[in-house]
């Protein structure tokens, strides 16, 4: 018979160490999968985890891919830490990109140093407003934020579809579902000639610093953490729960909106239907892999970004199906949850006698 018991003493060091165990297990698991598929596992893993970042261009691409993941995950950490399950970051990203992109299109034939900041600000506000919908519905009408935020993803995507097909489509673009190219004044400045890494990375780094400061050095951060540990305690302590819910959703939405605006003003340069390959959902994995810790999230976003790049490289050089990238992301989350479970619970195998079983 198997008995599961809660552990009373979970060592903190181990808590921050299990993500590494999860990653190592994922690499081992990946190696086994490659072997079964008939590839040399060492070679496959090399193409997966080393080749993509073996040159400057690759490193730039890694940071480019990690930037939106990091930004969104930082925002989500505020929600998740306070027990607010915002699953709709993808929608907030999309709506932020719509608002920011709208401003960029407004200035499509103009130049000026003020345009890009306006576009970025509009994107953050857009994401913020969109995240407020599930927050307000939750605080005043007691709806389930998981459902509302998730369903709003489809609303924002359909709105984007409508805009790029209809009113915002490029008048010279033969009705193809995309807007005009933004002017250079609404594009993120590139950091290096010939590489795609852009100034958006500073937004992500600023978000990391700011979130660390808010979470660990302010009263709001204290409230968020207490509410996450025990809602009742937070109530007894007299925290204003409603305000806090609104604030964490706003922070989360603003971060996702910034990620969206970073993509369209950075590598993409226009609005179309494929602005995000589900960054908003992948960032949920990033947030948990990073233990909802700002610096952990930086690390986690780089690891997850690498699984994307690795999947492409492995396909180009070895023709390994691209979906192994998703398998890797799934394995990371699975091993993390599994090791967490074993961290918090003891599994005891009891050897009982027959008569004892009857009781």
């Amino acid at each position: 018979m198997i008995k599961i018991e809660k552990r009373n003493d979970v060592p903190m060091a181990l808590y921050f160490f299990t993500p590494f165990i999860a990653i190592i297990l994922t690499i081992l698991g990946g190696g086994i999968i490659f072997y079964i598929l008939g590839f040399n596992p060492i070679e496959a893993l090399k193409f997966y985890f080393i080749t993509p970042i073996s040159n400057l261009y690759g490193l730039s691409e890694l940071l480019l891919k990690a930037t939106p993941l990091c930004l969104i995950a930082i925002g989500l950490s505020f929600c998740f830490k306070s027990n607010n399950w915002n699953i709709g970051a993808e929608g907030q990203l999309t709506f932020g990109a719509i608002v920011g992109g709208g401003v960029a299109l407004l200035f499509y034939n103009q130049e000026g140093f003020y345009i890009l900041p306006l576009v970025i600000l509009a994107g953050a506000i857009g994401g913020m407003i969109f995240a407020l919908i599930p927050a307000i519905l939750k605080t005043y009408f007691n709806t389930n934020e998981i459902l509302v935020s998730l369903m709003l993803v489809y609303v924002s995507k359909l709105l984007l579809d409508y805009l790029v097909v209809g009113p915002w489509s490029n008048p010279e673009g033969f009705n193809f579902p995309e807007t005009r190219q933004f002017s250079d004044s609404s594009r993120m400045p590139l950091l290096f000639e010939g590489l795609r890494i852009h100034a958006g990375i500073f937004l992500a780094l600023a978000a990391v610093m700011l979130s660390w400061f808010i979470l660990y050095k302010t009263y709001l951060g204290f409230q968020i953490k207490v509410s996450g540990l025990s809602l009742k305690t937070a109530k007894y302590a007299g925290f204003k729960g409603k305000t806090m819910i609104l604030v964490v959703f706003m922070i989360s939405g603003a971060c996702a909106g910034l990620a969206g605006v970073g993509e369209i003003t950075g590598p993409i340069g226009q609005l179309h239907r494929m602005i995000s390959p589900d960054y908003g959902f992948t960032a949920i994995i990033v947030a948990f892999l990073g233990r909802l810790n700002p610096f952990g999230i930086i690390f986690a976003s780089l690891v997850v970004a690498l699984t994307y790049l690795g999947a492409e490289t492995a396909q180009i050089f070895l023709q390994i199906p691209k979906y192994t990238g998703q398998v890797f992301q799934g394995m990371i989350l699975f091993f993390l949850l599994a090791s967490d479970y074993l961290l918090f619970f003891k599994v005891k195998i009891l050897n009982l006698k027959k008569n004892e079983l009857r009781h």
Partner: protein
Amino acid sequence: MYKNFFKYLISAIFLLGFSVNSNADFKVGFVYVGPTGDHGWTFQHHEGRNAVEAAGIKTTFVESVPEGADAERVIRQLAQSGHDLIFTTSFGYMDPTNKVAKDFPNVKFEHATGYKREHSNVSTYSARFYEGRTLLGHIAGKMTKTNTIGYIASFPIPEVIRGINAMTLAAQKVNPNIKTKIVWVFTWYDPGKEAEAAQALIDQGADVIMQHTDSTAPVQTAEKAGVWSFGQASDMQRFAPKSILTSIIDDWAPYYVERAIAARDGTWNQQDTWHGLKEGMVAMGPYNSAMGADLVKEVEQLQKDLASGKVHSFTGPIYDQKGNILVAEGKVADDGMLAGMSVYVKGVEGDIPK
């Protein structure tokens, strides 16, 4: 002196070896927008790739590449890793293809269905799918009992509108009472949405279903409902053997092989290709025996006439929905008009989404 002679000899051998080597190393890359198993658009490009491989040329493909920020990296990686010719097989790769082409002047690029050729190493290619639509229209006009043809459309771009118009014109020729009903699904591949659209059209009385989307869901829905349908992009007959009358098949293989050999032998040049039934880039699947021998004969004759140029899909008089003349009697639409087509012809119901 002899020393130098040997030095030159060695370097000559080296150079020779190198050039032979680079010929043997010639590689072609393919970027796909969907999975190779979609049984539609990407499936057919993959068949084209297999033909290139069968011609003794090494190839690489990357499937399911999103048309966003990732596309540029994938194309660039292919260019960087020694691919000499790269086919990017979806419209959304247009800007990334041109951007990478600028940085790799020695690599040749072929972009499907786009209109930008910003650098001398970028060619574009597409197929005159509308010629196939003319054949479908002829068949649909003869086969329908309700005089209503249901059309599942993806995006209101000229290519799709051209197909709707070509089909409607051909159907009207054999059946003046024909009406074309359209559902826009705003996707190229979404089995769920496509099936719903097919069902909605059937509910509105359409007994022939046609699609400009890539999944097999519409033909399967038609099979279940007992109405006629047509396969799209590849021969979909085995997915709906009773319902499918024929399929429009995109056959990229001859073009891919020709261009790959040209690039390898150094005779590749920039061009804008628009091939149809004549060159075989558009082909038809087997005709369903339910059509009857007479109709099959008629359609096969029409197919020959379209290929030879004796018949053109857009022969005047053609009117728009309001009755204004688009193409005068006795004239045919030129390629410029076809490339920018953005109005429905008379007989199509509804408005183009704006």
